[in-house]
């Protein structure tokens, strides 16, 4: 059960290995990695700049993770998020969930991503070379994705 916010890249294999090391009660591990794409909504992106709210970011991610643990029987979980300048192909976010059975691990990972997308205080600015930068607008589809968990 951990939250980490950092500039540095992370190593998905090492994180999963650390999470399951010495455990023989885990049946399912789901990971989600979010990557920077070089095209977003038709715009060519040369890099993104991720601003965040130090202090609140960690607290909010911990609240989201705690909510996932209330809803699903998770044996381990991890939420990592980067900030600063990132190039296309780099990993922005990593979510890992571990449970005895696959459905809980899948659902909790989707929930963490949906909630994080609408609650964690990060803001993306896309750099588009000579055309300057542009703040990314929030997606209604992200609100809808998060709202589907309200009914439960």
């Amino acid at each position, binding site marked *: 059960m951990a939250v980490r916010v950092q500039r540095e890249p992370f190593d998905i294999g090492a994180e999963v290995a650390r999470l399951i090391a010495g455990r023989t009660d885990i049946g399912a591990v789901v990971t989600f990695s*979010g990557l920077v794409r070089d095209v977003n909504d038709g715009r060519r992106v040369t890099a993104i700049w*991720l*601003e*965040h*709210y130090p*202090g*609140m970011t960690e*607290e*909010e991610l911990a609240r989201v993770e705690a909510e996932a643990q209330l809803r699903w029987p998770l044996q381990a979980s991890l939420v990592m*998020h980067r900030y600063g300048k990132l190039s296309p192909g780099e990993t*922005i*976010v990593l979510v890992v969930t571990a449970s005895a059975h696959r459905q809980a691990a899948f659902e909790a990972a989707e929930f963490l*991503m949906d909630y*994080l*997308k*609408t*609650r*964690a*205080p*990060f*803001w*993306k*600015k896309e750099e588009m070379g000579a055309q300057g930068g542009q*703040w*990314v*607008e*929030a997606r209604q589809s*992200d609100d809808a994705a998060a709202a589907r968990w309200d009914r439960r």
Partner: protein
Amino acid sequence: MRVMTVKLCYFAWVRERVGKGEEVVELPEGIGSVADLVAWLRSRGPEYAAAFQRADVIRAAIDRTHVKPTAAIAGAREIAFFPPVTGG
């Protein structure tokens, strides 16, 4: 007159328009909610008017917790304003 001293934080394009990331302000009496605070901020100059023009899309947090515009600010130490989040 009773004044309230509070730290304000701005992020993303709110920060860029206000022209600073944070400031400490003394609030006059009569500002009870986040919405009241936004209205007061808009009156502080053109940079604030520009930053808070689309008040409906601006989000707020009190002491690092998301709040609605109707939330009371009494006792707050740090109030942050920012656009809808776009992480992940």
